[in-house]
C-alpha cells in the first residue's frame, strides 16, 4: 500500500511551514532543540495531512501532553486544538473486541485448537496478546482500540510513516545537493524539481492553510 501523492504534497508543505514557524532555520537554539522542532513539525504535518483517523487524533493528543509543544500545536491547529476531545464511550466495544480477536486468530493461526475458548482468558499471556500490547503502544491512540481498529489503523499509520520517511529523505537530499552546489556553479536541479513536481498541485490546499495562518504575523525565513 502506498500513500497518495496528494498526501506527500500536503505533508511536505505542512512540515516546511511548521519548520518556518518554529524558527529552526534561524539557527537559534541547540542542536537538540532544532531536532525536536523538526520532528514535531514532521509529526504534526503527518497528522494534519492525513486528516481524521484514530491514530492522528491519538498522535496530536500525545504531543499536546508535553507543555513545550502546546504553543506550536495551538498555532498550527488553531480552533481544532482548543476543541475538547470527544469522550469515548468504549464500554460497548469490549464484547465485540473479544469476538474479533477470536475470529482474527481463527483466520491467521495455523493452530486451531485454542480458538474454541468461550472467553478471552486463554488469550491473556499468549504471544499474540503480548505482541498486541506492544503494537498498541506503538500506534498512537492504540490503547483504546479494539482488535480490528488496531489492525486497520496500523495499516494506515505505517503507510503514512513510510511516506513521511520518503519525503524527509528527499528533502534532505535536495538540501544537501544545494549545499554542495554553493561551492561551484554546477547546476543540480534534479532533486529540487522532483520535490517541486511533488508539490505542484498544492494550490487547492494552500488557501486553507493560508486562511488559518493569515491572522498571525508572517515570519521571514
Amino acid at each position, binding site marked *: *500500500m502506498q500513500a497518495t501523492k496528494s498526501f506527500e504534497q500536503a505533508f511536505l*508543505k505542512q512540515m516546511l511551514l511548521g519548520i518556518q514557524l518554529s524558527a529552526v532555520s534561524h539557527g537559534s537554539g541547540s542542536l537538540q532543540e532544532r531536532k525536536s522542532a523538526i*520532528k514535531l513539525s514532521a509529526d504534526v504535518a503527518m497528522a494534519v495531512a492525513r486528516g481524521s483517523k484514530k491514530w492522528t487524533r491519538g498522535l496530536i493528543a500525545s504531543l499536546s501532553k508535553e507543555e513545550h509543544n502546546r504553543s506550536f500545536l495551538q498555532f498550527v491547529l488553531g480552533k481544532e486544538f482548543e476543541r475538547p476531545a470527544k469522550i469515548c464511550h468504549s464500554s460497548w466495544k469490549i464484547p465485540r473486541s473479544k469476538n474479533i480477536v477470536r*475470529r482474527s486468530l481463527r483466520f*491467521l493461526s495455523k493452530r486451531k485448537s485454542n480458538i474454541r475458548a468461550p472467553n478471552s482468558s486463554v488469550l491473556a499471556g499468549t504471544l499474540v496478546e503480548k*505482541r498486541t500490547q506492544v*503494537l498498541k503502544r506503538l500506534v498512537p491512540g492504540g490503547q483504546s482500540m479494539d482488535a480490528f481498529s488496531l489492525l486497520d489503523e496500523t495499516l494506515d499509520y505505517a503507510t503514512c510513516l513510510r511516506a*513521511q520517511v520518503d519525503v524527509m529523505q528527499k528533502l534532505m537530499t535536495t538540501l544537501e545537493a544545494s549545499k554542495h552546489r554553493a561551492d561551484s556553479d554546477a547546476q543540480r536541479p534534479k532533486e529540487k524539481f522532483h520535490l517541486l513536481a511533488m508539490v505542484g498541485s*498544492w494550490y487547492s490546499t494552500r488557501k486553507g492553510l493560508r486562511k488559518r495562518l493569515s491572522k498571525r504575523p508572517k515570519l521571514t525565513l
Partner: protein
Amino acid sequence: MSGRGSRITDEEINELVSKLQSLLPESRRRNTGRVSASKLLKETCSYIKSLHREVDDLSDRLSGLMVTMDSNSPQAEIIRSLLRS
C-alpha cells in the same frame, strides 16, 4: 468504520491482514501462505519501530543542515520555492 454496522465480515479481516502482510518489507520474499498472528504482529512492530528510528535520524540530519541556513542561503531559497509552488 461508521456505517459498517456491528458485523465485521471474515472477508474484511482477511483483506486487512493480507494488506498488512504485503506492507511489511520481508513479505516479498515469503511465499504467499498464511503467516501466524504472532509473526505478523512481531514484524509489524519491528517495521514501525524501524520507521520511527528513520524519522528520528532524518530529523537529526535535517537539523544539522538547517543550522547553516541564513535567509540568503540556497537552502532557504529552496524552502521558499517549495512553499511558493
